[in-house]
């Protein structure tokens, strides 16, 4: 139904891509997104870093020398063979807290990222597919409002509402405040996708709208979804730490954010307990760096020009 010049599905119509097409007759298979991601050295490094964290988190009880909540150590002990990084002011082992803290960060990253991605996916997809209709107007409006509402007071309200600040609350709060950007991006994406002939073809096959959105279009966005997820997970990890530092974190368990909060509240710096402050921030930064490195790989998906990076 269009009279535009022929384009390959994966090609965005620019000449370099056309070039690639001409060169690569490799059975015409579009690159699997994970292969593309893996092709980036940075992404590989990132995967290794994140894997190490995951392993440490999963096997925390084996790795950590002590129970992170065991407060029976001498408070304010320096680094020693028993307390690798010393102890806190209330007598907990910093190293063990650090190791167990990875669990919360990764958990929040995984589920916060997942939830945010799902919300943004559903809203963005439906909105984009229904572009120009009232459904889209409403969903876009909601998305835009969510984008401009200052997140912090909203988060505080949400957190204040629950008696228990558990990790799932944090996951929920992070997801609910961070989906909007992704939804907008996915809306834009689906608008370009929904005019593809195969979508029209699906209509002619008698498919329902839901099925078209989620069974026909969505599988073609797997790379975008992956990208969105990595981004959202990275954001969630940072957000968890930020919330904890504000004193809004999960107060039941140990995370790097709560460690920083405690350290700061206890004046760790003036007491010279710089390890207590320095290390949680550093491990957090390294994890997020790992995630960002994976994102370098993910960037290759949306921007094929980046693929020849060393």
């Amino acid at each position, binding site marked *: 139904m269009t009279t535009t010049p022929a384009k390959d599905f994966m090609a965005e119509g620019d000449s370099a891509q056309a070039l690639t097409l001409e060169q690569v007759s490799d059975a015409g298979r579009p690159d699997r997104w994970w292969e593309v991601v893996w092709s980036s050295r940075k992404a590989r490094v990132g995967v290794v870093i994140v894997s190490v964290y995951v392993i440490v988190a999963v096997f925390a009880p084996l790795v950590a020398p002590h129970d992170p909540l065991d407060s029976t150590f001498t408070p304010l002990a320096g680094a020693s063979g028993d307390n690798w990084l010393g102890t806190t002011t209330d007598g907990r082992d910093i190293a063990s807290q650090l190791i167990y803290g990875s669990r919360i960060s990764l958990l929040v990253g995984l589920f916060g990222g997942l939830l945010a991605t799902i919300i943004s996916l559903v809203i963005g997809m439906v909105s984009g597919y229904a572009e120009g209709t009232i459904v889209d107007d409403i969903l876009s409006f909601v998305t835009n409002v969510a984008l401009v*509402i200052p997140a912090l007071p*909203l988060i505080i*309200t949400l957190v204040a509402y629950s008696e228990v600040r558990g990790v799932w609350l944090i996951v929920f709060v992070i997801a609910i405040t961070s989906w909007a950007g992704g939804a907008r991006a996915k809306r834009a994406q689906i608008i370009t996708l929904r005019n593809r002939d195969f979508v029209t073809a699906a209509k002619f096959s008698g498919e329902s709208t839901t099925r078209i959105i989620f069974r026909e279009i969505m599988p073609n966005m797997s790379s975008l979804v992956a990208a969105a997820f990595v981004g959202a997970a990275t954001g969630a990890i940072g957000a968890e730490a930020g919330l904890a530092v504000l004193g809004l974190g999960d107060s039941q368990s140990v995370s790097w954010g709560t460690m920083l909060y405690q350290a700061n509240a206890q004046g760790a710096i003036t007491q010279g307990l710089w390890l207590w402050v320095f290390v949680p921030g550093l491990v957090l930064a390294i994890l997020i760096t790992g*995630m960002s490195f994976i994102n370098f790989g993910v960037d290759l998906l949306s921007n094929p020009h980046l693929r020849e990076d060393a």
Partner: protein
Amino acid sequence: MRYFARKFGFFVATLWAVVTLNFLIPRLQPGDPAEIMVKKLAGKDAQLDPAQVRAMRAMLGAPDGSLVQQYGTYLGELVRGNFGLSYSYYPFKVTEVIGQAFWWTVILVTVTQALSFVVGVVLGAYAAWRRNSRFDSVVTLGSTFLGTLQPFWIALLLLYVFGYSLGWFPTSGGYEESTPGLNFPFVQEAVSHSFLPALALLIVTPIGWILGMRNTMIMNLGEDYIRLAKAKGLPDRVVALKYAARNALLPSVTGFALALGGVLGGAILVEQAFDYPGLGRLMGEAVENKDYPLLQTLMLLTTVGVLVANLVADLLYGVLDPRARRAQS
């Protein structure tokens, strides 16, 4: 015309939604502002003196009537430009309170954002042009790592290293002994006090611009018009600047306008860490004190900032990208 009507309609509708949420969000929080104020004066968990709480309620005069009535009153006052009196800075008007903090944040944030934008864009463009060079790797890897650092953590480290250990910079406040105004001692103090907060903001922010610029630039370098420019035998400098960077800049510029609107949120943590007398600290205080009028107005200010920045970005895009001009008219 229709385009602008639509834009404006959206602007108004969003504004209304935001105003409503701004009204609801603080009120949905548990806790009574009068109690909180008294508690602040009395101490964290001291037994509250009911007489004082009562006096405080009488003073703040809020809230009475049902939520719907309050909402009506709130909208009415808002339309008349009356934002009310701050609770925690009673009896000052919210606008006066904000007025005092406004320029501190605006200057800090515009300067750092502008600086990080310029630095980010220049580094990003150069990294893309010299793709896969040592410069490129250093810039991309370095900025990635710096960008992942948490602002509060950087603030702590900066405070520790430059404030406490080395004592090069003051650790809190916006100035010390001078009188605010355009006089040399004040400017000098303000600059030295702003240095660490600015540095903390600067370390984290350029990464987005660097990588964004680098990526769009690389994408643009594959475009036909770049290949044609090369085929035309134009010097690298011209191709890089007039053709590649000029085009790659477009998304960044609109991004910049949007970022400017939304920086208040980002400034909160840093301002608090350095006790910087700006809007971010004020918002933190307002939240803590349940200072509804102040919080509402700050949220309104932020959202209006974002919305206006959105509009400006759209208009700016029209100016910068001739393709967009026709679509808009």
